[in-house]
């Protein structure tokens, strides 16, 4: 069967995934994608301004097209459909035959017909190309206006504000988000957004755009007032792209859109339409969840399931706009005849909640939540499943005053068929099955396994509740015990150490653990002690807890020798320093190599040579580089403004300062920094746990990136910081990570597992929601103040020094260490080379 899909957006790709799953015999699938890139997450488009790349936003699983054999053609816009011959022709004349055709052409951004709308620096907010254009314009602009105060308009306003522009929202209706939110909610929403520094103008109709006096544009309104600005983004609605359908004479809906039946077929049964371009019962749907539903229905129907049907969509949404929680369920405006509402308004905390109930008070018909939307999951389930309301339904939205739990819905009240995740159509039954059959027990696993919570994230709290409830039922302990010796997570253990002022493992074991400890809890405890007390790691009481690398202050290699990495902060080293390192390497016959962290690594040191090597390096002014620890490694830098013609600020100076501040910090896993002096980003700071990039106005801070097996981009957490504020924020970020992460958890995984992700981090670190900012800074300052070079302390302590021996009872060399030569340097001999190696092949001294 030849299948041609026109459009490769979110819904187009969901159709392909569903088709692959449904399995159609002999399907020959071609996808014509107008944009130059495959499907990406348009819902989270604003993340493109906080560090995510187009690749990060991609929705295509790796290897999808190779695996399925579907053919994707990029930058291949369909121009013409000829239904008599079942062909589709692209703009460049390529023709494709079809047995089934699927239209997934999405929408256009609607731009009101205002004279001047085509002026330069006027944009729409739809594609990555639009965003690139906005970024370029934003770099030279001081202010920006978003026309349209709906969902998308407010997202766009956030993006402009993140770019550092003085941002305005101009809305035609009397309030923001007029479709989802009522007057009372609209008032609170407006005041919260204005608090964030965005100017809101409602009941404004723009009549023309002309040259401004002080700024590029002047927007003139119907009431005679005007607003001047440097750039304008239109986000005033979307219109379905049904031009192809009109061209080939398919039926269209009353308000546009390709008319479809419940199987998503158009007036021609060989042609389907799904997503924003489709019109069902004269309704078009601007949310992704109904689009996904249609995609699944169409795929199943093509695969032969004649019962697959689309039955409209619930348009409830919950989102976080500029940090403000907004949720809307069902009949939010109370349009149902005889319905009545309960409203709760707190003008101090800026919270608005309303529920709309049926005339008999038994059914929940709708709700609006602004400023606090925790009840969304519960209320949605009640509305969707027709669950009878409790006797006094107002308590669903009133704050609890007597400490009693609110009349909520335990997950048990929900039927298995209840749809919990509407974006991906995941039911309660499916979530429970993932727990009972596949032993899923974390949110990250649940997302990967069922896709629940993986798209908009709104259902995550409820999914977590259901998951934990099912785990309990299955007798699966919600277990994040660190190991068999301590019934605590690392975070809990950290707390016990800090609060109980515990400084030894024996003490910790006696008070909170059992057995002898092991290679999991000992190093974890050592790391916690180091982060909190920062004593010398090889002190008698702590030495036996250290991982072997930390015990010998070096990195063990496959033959039992060690590599030695002296610190070169910011990648900077003097000629004398290089010479000294070279001389040490020569004297001890070591192998030398430069690392990715911009420093020199020396290999082949026997354990008894380590203190001698360190002494010579220390004499030359070097310190331990902590390459062996779960600690700060390096701060990578680019050339920066001191020498580079493009540098905007002194990246090397800052890198050196940061590395010297945080050296010696121990953490749940290794930490790497990068500092770039301009947007060319030569230090690859966006691939680091902590990334800093210079701007005209200061420094931008990115967090939670990493390289390695699963590379991951860091995200922008704050912009245009002064150096002092940057350091404060990094202090807080690092200490919060050290305090709360799991053992061996990189910052990226830690951030993913934080409920609320980056937004939560911002709340804790920027807005000090938990009230711990001062504490975190003080803790970091303690670590900074108590820094000592471990190599120095080790070589000057005879008791520690004597542990560095191959044999406790002999000065003989370990004869099992054998080197051969390669490219002029030593390397460990392979097993077969050992037999033939001469005694001289071992190191010189």
């Amino acid at each position, binding site marked *: 069967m030849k299948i041609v899909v026109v459009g490769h957006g979110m819904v187009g790709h969901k159709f392909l995934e569903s088709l692959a799953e449904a399995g159609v015999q002999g399907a020959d699938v071609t996808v014509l994608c107008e944009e130059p890139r495959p499907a990406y997450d348009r819902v989270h488009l604003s993340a493109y301004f906080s560090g995510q790349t187009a690749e990060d936003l991609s929705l295509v699983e790796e290897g999808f097209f190779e695996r399925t054999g579907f053919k994707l053609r990029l930058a291949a816009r369909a121009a013409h459909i000829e239904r008599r011959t079942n062909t589709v022709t692209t703009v460049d004349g390529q023709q494709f035959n079809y047995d089934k055709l699927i239209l997934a052409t999405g929408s256009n951004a609607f731009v009101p017909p205002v004279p001047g709308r085509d002026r330069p620096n006027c944009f729409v907010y739809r594609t990555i190309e639009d965003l690139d254009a906005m970024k370029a314009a934003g770099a030279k602009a001081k202010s920006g206006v978003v026309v349209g105060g709906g969902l998308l308009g407010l997202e766009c306003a956030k993006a402009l504000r993140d770019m550092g522009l003085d941002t305005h929202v101009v809305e035609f209706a009397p309030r923001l988000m007029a479709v989802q939110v009522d007057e009372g909610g609209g008032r609170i929403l407006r005041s919260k957004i204005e608090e964030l520094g965005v100017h809101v103008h409602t009941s404004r109709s723009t009549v023309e755009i002309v040259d401004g006096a002080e700024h590029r544009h002047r927007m003139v309104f119907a009431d005679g007032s005007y607003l001047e600005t440097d750039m304008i983004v239109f986000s005033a609605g979307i219109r379905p792209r049904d031009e192809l359908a009109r061209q080939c004479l398919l039926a269209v809906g009353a308000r546009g859109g390709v008319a479809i039946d419940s199987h998503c077929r158009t007036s021609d049964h060989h042609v389907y339409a799904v997503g924003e371009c489709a019109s069902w019962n004269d309704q078009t749907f601007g949310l992704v969840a109904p689009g996904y539903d249609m995609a699944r229905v169409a795929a199943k129907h093509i695969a032969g399931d004649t019962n697959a049907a689309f039955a409209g969509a619930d348009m409830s949404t919950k989102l976080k706009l500029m940090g403000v929680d907004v949720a809307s369920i069902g009949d939010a405006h109370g349009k149902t005849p005889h319905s009545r509402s309960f409203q709760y308004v707190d003008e101090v905390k800026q919270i608005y909640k309303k529920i709309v109930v049926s005339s008999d008070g038994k059914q929940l018909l709708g709700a609006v939540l602004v400023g606090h939307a925790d009840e969304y999951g519960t209320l949605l389930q009640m509305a969707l499943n027709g669950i009878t309301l409790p006797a006094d339904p107002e308590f669903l939205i009133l704050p609890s005053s007597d400490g009693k739990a609110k009349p909520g819905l335990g997950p048990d009240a929900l039927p298995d068929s209840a749809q919990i995740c509407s974006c991906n159509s995941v039911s309660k039954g499916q979530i429970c099955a993932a727990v009972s059959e596949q032993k899923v027990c974390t949110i990250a696993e649940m997302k990967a396994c069922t896709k629940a919570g993986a798209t908009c994230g709104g259902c995550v709290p409820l999914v977590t509740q259901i998951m934990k409830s099912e785990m309990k039922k299955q007798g699966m302990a919600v277990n994040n015990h660190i190991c*068999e*010796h301590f019934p605590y997570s690392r975070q809990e253990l950290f707390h016990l150490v800090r609060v109980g002022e515990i400084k030894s493992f024996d003490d910790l074991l006696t008070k909170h653990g059992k*057995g*002898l*400890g*092991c*290679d999991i*809890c*000992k*190093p974890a405890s050592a790391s916690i002690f180091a982060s909190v007390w920062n004593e010398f790691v090889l002190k*008698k009481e702590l*030495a*036996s*807890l*250290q*991982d*072997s*690398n930390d*015990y*010998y202050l070096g990195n*063990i290699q*496959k*033959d*039992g020798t060690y590599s030695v990495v002296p610190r070169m902060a910011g990648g900077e080293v003097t000629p004398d320093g290089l010479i000294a390192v070279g001389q040490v390497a020569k004297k001890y016959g070591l192998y030398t190599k430069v690392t990715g962290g911009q420093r020199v690594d020396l290999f082949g040191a026997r354990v008894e040579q380590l203190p001698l090597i360190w002494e010579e390096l220390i004499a030359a002014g070097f310190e331990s580089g902590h390459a062996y620890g779960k600690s700060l490694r390096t701060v990578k830098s680019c050339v920066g403004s001191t020498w580079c013609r493009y540098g905007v600020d002194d990246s090397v100076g800052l890198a050196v300062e940061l590395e010297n501040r945080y050296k010696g910090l121990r953490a749940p896993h290794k930490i790497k920094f990068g500092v770039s002096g301009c947007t060319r980003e030569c230090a690859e700071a966006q691939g680091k746990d902590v990334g800093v990039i210079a701007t005209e106005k200061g420094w931008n801070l990115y967090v939670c990136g990493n390289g390695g097996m699963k590379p991951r981009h860091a995200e922008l957490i704050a912009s245009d910081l002064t150096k002092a504020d940057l350091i404060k924020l990094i202090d807080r970020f690092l200490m919060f990570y050290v305090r709360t992460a799991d053992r061996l958890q990189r910052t990226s995984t830690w951030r993913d597992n934080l409920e609320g992700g980056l937004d939560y981090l911002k709340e804790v670190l920027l807005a000090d929601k938990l009230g711990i900012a001062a504490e975190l800074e003080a803790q970091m300052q303690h670590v900074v103040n108590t820094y000592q070079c471990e190599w120095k302390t080790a070589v000057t302590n005879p008791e520690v020094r*004597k*542990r560095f*021996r*191959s*044999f*406790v*009872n*002999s000065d*003989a060399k*370990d004869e*099992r260490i054998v080197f051969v030569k390669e490219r002029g340097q030593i390397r460990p001999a392979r*097993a077969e080379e050992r037999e033939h190696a001469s005694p001289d092949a071992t190191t010189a001294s």
Partner: protein
Amino acid sequence: MNASDKHFQASCWTGACHVDDILPNTGVCALVNGEHVAIFRVGQDQFYGIENIDPITGASVLSRGLIGSLGDHIVVASPLYKHHFDLRTGQCLEDSALSVRAYAVEVREGRVGVLTA
């Protein structure tokens, strides 16, 4: 064959070091008649011995690993790949084919020594 069997067959005690040369809950390596022996001090006064050679890489390193308990076993985790070796028997808990030799270790007049045939 475990350490206690060795004890009966052993006829030679070779002292390696003073008890206090081994930090509690760490290990050292002794060269005994050309063999590399890892000696562990568990707590203040329990001593064990196994071969020091890691069976996978051939590197002489097991004495440098972390000591702990896993269930009823007292073990050391190899610093290279973290395989766990029972200190009483030399058994590798992950793969018995990777087990190492165990030695009988005895303290005489404050000195730790290894019993060999």
